[in-house]
C-alpha cells in the first residue's frame, strides 16, 4: 500500500506472457520398475492444448480508460502540458510485442499516443479490422473486435510528429496510487495504472495577422497500435533544436483532410458542417505551404460579393466564425466545388501513407489564452465597485458604497437616473434589527424605496424585493407551499385563540405550543389539548360521566323512585311489573288516576261573564287613554269608565261578548 498523499512510479509492468495464441505441450515420462528385469519406459502420448491470452488490439474497452488529459472535448491552453491517457490495466502497454526482433522483456510498448492537429491525419469510420493497417501488413486473425477505426497519415507527418522508436519506452510507465485517494485512484481496483504520454505539446494556431491573437486549434489524440509497423517510425531523433517555431503549427496540415464539403452541399450545410458537408476521405497530395489555412484567412472576400450568390461562399469568412483560418479554407474549397473546378488542390501527388489501428481517440481545442500562471498574475484585483484604470467613457457613476447610477424609467414613464446596488458591495453593511421589538417586514416593494439627499431615488432594495417576489411566483410549487403554510398558520392561530379562551388553568402551555412549533391543527389538539384535558380530573375524569347524564331536578335527585311514582298517583308495584313484562311500551297501559273536569261553559256563569266584561272595559279604557295620551288626572282623567264606555261605539269584541251573553241568557231561559 502506498502512503496516502503519495504515489509511486514504475518504468513498466510486463506480463509473464504477451498476448497471443500459445500451444502448450505436456510430456510424461513413465518408467516401470519391475521386480525382476530392467526398468522399462512406458510410452505416454503428449497432450497439447491451446491457450489464448487476450488483450485489446483494435478497440479499447471503455472501462479500461480511467482518464485522458486534456479532457475530451475541452477547450483550454494546454501549451505546456503533455497529453496523456491513463489505463486501468497496468500491463496493457506491454501486453503485445510490437517488435518481433526484441525479447518481450525489453520490447517497447505497443501503444503510442499521437496528437495531431486538424488536417494532419484522417480518422476512418468503423471498418473491418483487416483494413485498419497499412496494405501489406498482416496482424493475423487474432482480433478483439470485428470492426475498428484507423488513422491514416502520410510519411511526412510520421516523421514530424510521431515518436521515434527509441523514445517509445520513455512514453509509457506504471503508476501506483493510494486506493483511498479518490482523485488519483479514479475508480481503479488495484491501485496500479498504466500511463501513455504523447511527446507533442499542443500549440494554438498562429495569429491571422502579425500582432493578432493566437487562434484556437483543434487537436485529436489517437491511441494507436504500432504492431508490425515500428519500422515506419523514425529510428531515432534527428538533430534537435532548443526551440521551435510556433508559427509553423498549421504548416503540417493537409487541406484536403480539413473538413471537406461534398459537391451537393448547401451553404447552410457548409457553414454548419452538417450533412454532406461533413468530412470525407480523399487521398491526395499536400498543398503547398503558400496556400496553407493560415494564409487563406487573409483572403477575405468583400461582404457584398456574397449577396445572392451562393457559390461565393468565401464571403462567409467575414461572418462570426472563430476558426477563420480553417473555415475560410473549407469554404474556399466548397467554392471550388460549386464552380466545378477544384482549384485549390494542386494535383494529387503520390505519397506513402500508413494506417494504424486507433484504439481510442478524443478531441480537444488548444487556445492561446495564456497559461494559468500568466493569467493569474495578470488578474486585476479589487473590491467590487472598482473601475478599471483605463475605463473608457462614459465612466459609470459609482459611489464608494458600491451604488451605481442607472437609467430608470418611472411608472409614469418619466426617464430618471436612480441609484442601485445589488446584494454585493465593497463594504460590510449593518443588518437591520428589530424596531420596538419587532423586525420590520415589508409587504410591497414600494416600502423599500428611498430618496437620497441628492434627490435621486435608491431603488436597490425595492428592486431586489421585486426580484425575490418574481422568482417565487416563477415556482408554482413554492407558491402552493406558501399558501399551504398560510392555511396552517390560520389553523394554528385559531387553535391558539381557543386555547387562550380555555384559559391558563386547563391548557397553560397550549398557546405557547402553537407559537413555537408548526404542525396541523389536529396535531396541536392531539398533542396539547387532549393531553391537558385528560390531566384535569374534573373535566374528563370519573365525574365527567355525571356531567353528561340527563339532567334531573335537584329536588328529585335524592328521592326514591317509588315515592315519585306514588306522588304521581301510580302504583309502584304495577308500574315495575308492567315495565318488566312489556318494556317501556307497556307503560302506556298502566292506569293513572286522573281528576274529573267540570264541563260547564263559561258563558253560562253570569258572574264570571260580568267580571270578564268589566275587565275588558277597563282594559279598553286604559288603552284608549294610552292612545290619546290622556294623562290620568288631566281634563279627561276625571271621566269615569262609564262615561267613556257610553261615549264610544260598540266594536266587534263588544258584539261578540253581547252575543255570547244573549245566547247564554236564551239557553238559561
Amino acid at each position, binding site marked *: 500500500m502506498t502512503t496516502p498523499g503519495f504515489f509511486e512510479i514504475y518504468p513498466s509492468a510486463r506480463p509473464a506472457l504477451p498476448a497471443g495464441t500459445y500451444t502448450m505441450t505436456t510430456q510424461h515420462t513413465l518408467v516401470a520398475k519391475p521386480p525382476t528385469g530392467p526398468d522399462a519406459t512406458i510410452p505416454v502420448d503428449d497432450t497439447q492444448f491451446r491457450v489464448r491470452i487476450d488483450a485489446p488490439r483494435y478497440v479499447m474497452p471503455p472501462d479500461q480508460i480511467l482518464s485522458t488529459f486534456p479532457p475530451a472535448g475541452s*477547450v483550454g491552453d494546454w501549451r505546456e502540458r503533455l497529453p496523456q491517457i491513463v489505463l486501468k490495466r497496468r500491463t496493457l502497454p506491454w501486453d503485445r510485442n510490437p517488435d518481433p526482433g526484441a525479447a518481450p522483456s525489453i520490447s517497447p510498448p505497443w501503444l503510442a499516443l499521437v496528437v495531431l492537429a486538424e488536417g494532419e491525419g484522417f480518422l476512418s469510420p468503423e471498418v473491418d479490422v483487416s483494413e485498419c493497417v497499412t496494405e501489406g501488413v498482416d496482424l493475423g486473425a487474432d482480433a478483439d473486435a470485428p470492426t475498428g477505426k484507423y488513422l491514416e497519415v502520410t510519411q511526412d507527418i510520421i516523421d514530424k510528429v510521431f515518436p521515434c522508436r527509441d523514445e517509445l519506452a520513455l512514453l509509457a510507465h506504471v503508476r501506483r496510487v493510494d486506493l483511498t485517494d479518490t*482523485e488519483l485512484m479514479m475508480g481503479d481496483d488495484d491501485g496500479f495504472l498504466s500511463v501513455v504520454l504523447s511527446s507533442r505539446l499542443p500549440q494554438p494556431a498562429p495569429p491571422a495577422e502579425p500582432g493578432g491573437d493566437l487562434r484556437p486549434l483543434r487537436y485529436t489524440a489517437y491511441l494507436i497500435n504500432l504492431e508490425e509497423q515500428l519500422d515506419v517510425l523514425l529510428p531515432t531523433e534527428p538533430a*534537435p533544436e532548443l*526551440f*521551435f517555431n510556433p508559427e509553423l503549427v498549421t504548416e503540417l496540415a493537409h487541406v484536403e483532410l480539413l473538413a471537406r464539403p461534398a459537391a451537393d452541399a448547401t451553404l447552410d450545410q457548409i457553414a454548419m458542417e452538417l450533412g454532406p458537408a461533413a468530412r470525407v476521405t480523399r487521398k491526395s497530395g499536400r498543398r503547398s505551404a503558400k496556400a496553407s489555412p493560415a494564409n487563406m484567412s487573409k483572403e477575405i472576400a468583400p461582404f457584398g460579393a456574397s449577396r445572392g450568390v451562393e457559390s461565393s461562399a468565401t464571403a462567409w469568412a467575414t461572418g462570426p466564425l472563430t476558426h477563420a483560418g480553417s473555415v475560410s479554407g473549407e469554404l474556399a474549397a466548397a467554392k471550388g466545388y460549386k464552380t466545378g473546378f477544384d482549384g485549390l488542390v494542386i494535383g494529387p501527388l503520390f505519397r506513402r501513407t500508413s494506417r494504424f489501428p486507433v484504439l481510442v481517440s478524443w478531441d480537444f481545442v488548444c487556445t492561446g489564452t495564456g497559461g494559468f500562471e500568466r493569467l493569474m498574475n495578470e488578474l486585476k484585483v479589487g473590491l467590487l465597485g472598482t473601475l478599471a484604470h483605463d475605463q473608457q467613457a462614459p465612466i459609470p457613476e459609482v459611489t464608494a458604497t458600491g451604488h451605481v447610477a442607472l437609467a430608470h424609467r418611472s411608472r409614469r414613464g418619466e426617464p430618471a437616473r436612480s441609484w442601485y446596488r445589488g446584494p454585493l458591495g465593497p463594504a460590510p453593511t449593518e443588518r437591520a434589527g428589530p424596531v420596538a421589538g419587532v423586525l420590520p417586514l415589508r409587504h410591497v416593494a414600494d416600502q423599500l424605496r428611498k430618496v437620497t439627499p441628492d434627490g435621486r431615488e435608491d431603488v436597490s432594495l425595492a428592486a*431586489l424585493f421585486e426580484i*425575490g417576489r418574481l422568482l417565487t411566483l416563477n415556482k408554482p410549487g413554492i407558491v402552493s407551499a406558501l399558501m399551504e403554510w398560510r392555511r396552517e*398558520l390560520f389553523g394554528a392561530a385559531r387553535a391558539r385563540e381557543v386555547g387562550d379562551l380555555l384559559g391558563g388553568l386547563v391548557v397553560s402551555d397550549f398557546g405557547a405550543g402553537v407559537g413555537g412549533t408548526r404542525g396541523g391543527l389536529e396535531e396541536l389538539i392531539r398533542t396539547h389539548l387532549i393531553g391537558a384535558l385528560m390531566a384535569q380530573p374534573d373535566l374528563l375524569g370519573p365525574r365527567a360521566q355525571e356531567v353528561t347524564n340527563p339532567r334531573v331536578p335537584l329536588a328529585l335527585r335524592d328521592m326514591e323512585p317509588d315515592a315519585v311514582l306514588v306522588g304521581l298517583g301510580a302504583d309502584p308495584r304495577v308500574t315495575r311489573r308492567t315495565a318488566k313484562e312489556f318494556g317501556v311500551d307497556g307503560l302506556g297501559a298502566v292506569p293513572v288516576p286522573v281528576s274529573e273536569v267540570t264541563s260547564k261553559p263559561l258563558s253560562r256563569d253570569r258572574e264570571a261573564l260580568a267580571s270578564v266584561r268589566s275587565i275588558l272595559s277597563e282594559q279598553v279604557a286604559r288603552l284608549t287613554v294610552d292612545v290619546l295620551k290622556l294623562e290620568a288626572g288631566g281634563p279627561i282623567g276625571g271621566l269615569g269608565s262609564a262615561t267613556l264606555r257610553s261615549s264610544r261605539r260598540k266594536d266587534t269584541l263588544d258584539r261578540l261578548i253581547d252575543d255570547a251573553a244573549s245566547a247564554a241568557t236564551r239557553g238559561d231561559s
Partner: protein
Amino acid sequence: MPDLTSAAYLSSLSAAQLTLTAAIGSLAEPTVPEDGVDPDGVVPAPLVRFLARLRLLEGVPFSYLVADADLTPPETIRFFYLDRNATDALVEGALSVGTVNSSDRVQLEQLYAVVRDEVDKAERLVRMKDADAPVVDAAGRPIGAGGPITGFVLRSRLVSGWPGLHVRAYSKDTLRDDRTIPEMDTSPDRVRLLRIERLAPAVLLVLFDGVPKVVHIEEPRCGIQFGVSLQEVTTAGQQKAVLAVRDVANPNKGPLKRPDGEVRTVDVPFRAGSPGVIDMKKLNKDLIDVTEAHMGGGVDAAEFAIQMLDFPLRQVFGDTTVAPGADAFVPTVNMVALATRFELAKNVLRS
C-alpha cells in the same frame, strides 16, 4: 463439521444475535432529513430551503448582482461583502407572495423574526459538500446562523479555460503559500464555501461563510500531469522551453536549486521543424547528465516521468505586506528614518 446442536454453538449463535440486535438498536434514527433543515420548524422545510437558496442569490439575474458590466472588466477578480439587507429584501419579496389580506400580513410580521432565524440557520446547510465548519453536529453539519458573508466575482479566461477551479479560504494567514493541503482541509481556520458557481462561461461567483484573510485559487487537478514551462519568446519564431530538474532519489524535495538559489533547469530539445514535438531521447540524456538528479544511466520511464511531473498552480490572494505566518504586530523602526529625525533635531537645537 461442527455439531449444530452443541451448547457452545448455540450460545455463540445467540451471542451473535444479541450483538446484532444491539448494533441495530444503536443505529441512529434518521430523525432529521439529510440536509439538516429542521422539519418541525415554524416555516415548512421546503420553504426554508427555497429561501436559503434565494439568500445565496440562486436564480437572481446577474445584472441584479453586478448592475454595470464596467464593474467587472475582463480579467479581473472583484471581492465583495454580501449585503444582508439586500438578501432580506429578496426574502421579504418571496414571503409577500403568500400574504393575501391584511390579517395575513399582521400574522407574518409577528412571525418574521422566527422565519429570519430559521433561514439564517438553513443558509449554511445549502452547500453540504464542504461541511467542515468549526461548529458542527454529529453528522458534520454546521450549527447555528452564520456571520457575515463575503465572496468574489472572477471574470477571466481562467474560468472558461480551466473548468473546476479549486477555491479555498482561511480566516488566518498561517500557512506557507506552497504548503501541501489535502483536498478536504479540516483546519479550524478554514472558511467554508457557501456557493461556487459559474454564472457565465467566464464568470465565477464564490460566496464565503465568513471574512477570509487568505484566498487560494488552484488550477484544477486533472490527476497527475506532465509538462514543461515555456519561456517568453525573445527571438521571433523561437519558442524555448525549460524543465526544472528534480532529484529522483528524493523526488519530494522539490526541484534542485543552483548555488545562487535559482531552480536548476535544462533546456528542452525539440524536433527540428515540428512545433511542440519534444525530443524525449535527448531530453532524457540531458537529465541524466545532471549528476545531482541521480538518474540511472539507462532508459528508465519512471525516472523520466518524475522529471516531467507538473503540479497544479496555486494562486494566493491575501495581504502581501505581511509574511505568511509572521506576527503582524511586531513594532519595527526604520533606522534610516530614525537617523533623519535625529539629524533634523540636531539642526533645530543648533539654530
